């Protein structure tokens, strides 16, 4: 699946993360901005990739501004952004 419609979810408040998804012309592109990138960047990107995979998304530009979010928050915010982009009302429970 491809992300076509730009969507935003989350905030830039402490312990949160803000995602902006938009169309990509080159597969999955992840741009992560985080104060803990050196320590946890790999882990955060892993969560993002897994969540995209669960929704079968193969093409998207992901901009993430992290403010120290836990994995569950990262996943929840990304799921919301994906749903907003795809115009879905309910999460894809089976894959979560």
């Amino acid at each position, binding site marked *: 699946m491809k992300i076509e419609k*730009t*969507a*935003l979810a989350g*905030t*830039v*408040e*402490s312990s*949160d993360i*803000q995602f*902006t998804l*938009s169309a990509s012309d080159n597969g999955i592109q992840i741009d992560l*901005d985080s104060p803990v990138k050196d320590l946890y960047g790999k882990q955060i990107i892993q969560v993002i990739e897994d969540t995209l995979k669960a929704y079968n998304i193969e093409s998207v*530009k992901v*901009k993430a*501004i992290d*403010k120290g979010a836990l994995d569950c928050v990262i996943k929840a915010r990304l799921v919301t952004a994906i749903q907003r982009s795809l115009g879905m009302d309910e999460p894809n429970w089976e894959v979560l």
Partner: protein
Amino acid sequence: MEVREIDLHVKRNFDRWHSFLIEHGISGFAPQETAAIDRTFIWNEAGQIIATGSIAGNILKYIAIDDAYQNGGAMFNQVVSKLMNEAAQLGRFHLFVFTKPKYIKSFSYVGFHLLAEVEDGAVLETGTPDINDYLDQLPKINDQHDKKIAAIVMNANPFTLGHRYLVEKASRENDSVYVFVVSQDVSLFKFDERFKLVKAGTEDLKNVIVVPGKEYMVSYATFPAYFLKDDQNVGRFQAKLDAELFKNKIAAPLNITRRYLGSEPYSKTTDVYNDELSKVLPPEVEVRIIERKKNVGGKIITATQVREAIQRDDLSMIKNFVPETTFDFIKENIGLLKDRF
């Protein structure tokens, strides 16, 4: 604490908001600035405003937070988050902010990237598509970094023989020329029309690349200056900011080493603008100011005169000022154009 949206058309709301901002060092409330506001939010605590922020088009404006509630930036992050989410609901994902240099850090912390900074102010952007996306999608030239590349920024309202003269000269003197057409739609000719006419009028020049300037080129007409002191020269400030942006974010990555400008005998604004560009751009980007072309009768060619002639229905005069491509368009659409005045 509660956050709510207020309607600034209600005088009582406006007055409260206005006095809160004045207390917090924001002083410019020109009617054209406040009229451009789409949404305004306030944060209340015990009946007092403690923070506010507004959205105007794709610009976040009038952000202020009471010192007692700064809380290490947490309140600021909350205000910006709220504005970004509201803007997203309006379908606006690419946002700008104009602010004092001392707040660059705060905005960078919430994901904004600096586009240009001068002594009195700075412009930052966030979201998507950003300036890197813009640069990525511009047409490139083979071995761009070994070539002599020039740039011209024009509004071309509409494209005249004067513009053509400038482009031709740059085309002759360089390997390639980027012509950036101002995207802002505040002119008689709409962007699509201006862009089309520049393309059509330069089609025979093979080393000329016509591209839209988007938000990154001479949008100084709408650069807000509301945080400046009244006695500062707004035009100069805006021109300086625009010149810095062009030099560092456009010219450097594209290897543009020359910028061509038309001399400006009539418009003070453009004159100030040329003056600031000449100060900021060199030595990295050489500025070449080219004398205006005169038509057969010895008159200087300006787009202003063409627009006046349209209003007067004076097609024979227009013919002396514009290339055939522009003339054909005007002739076909003169009724429509006159209706826009």
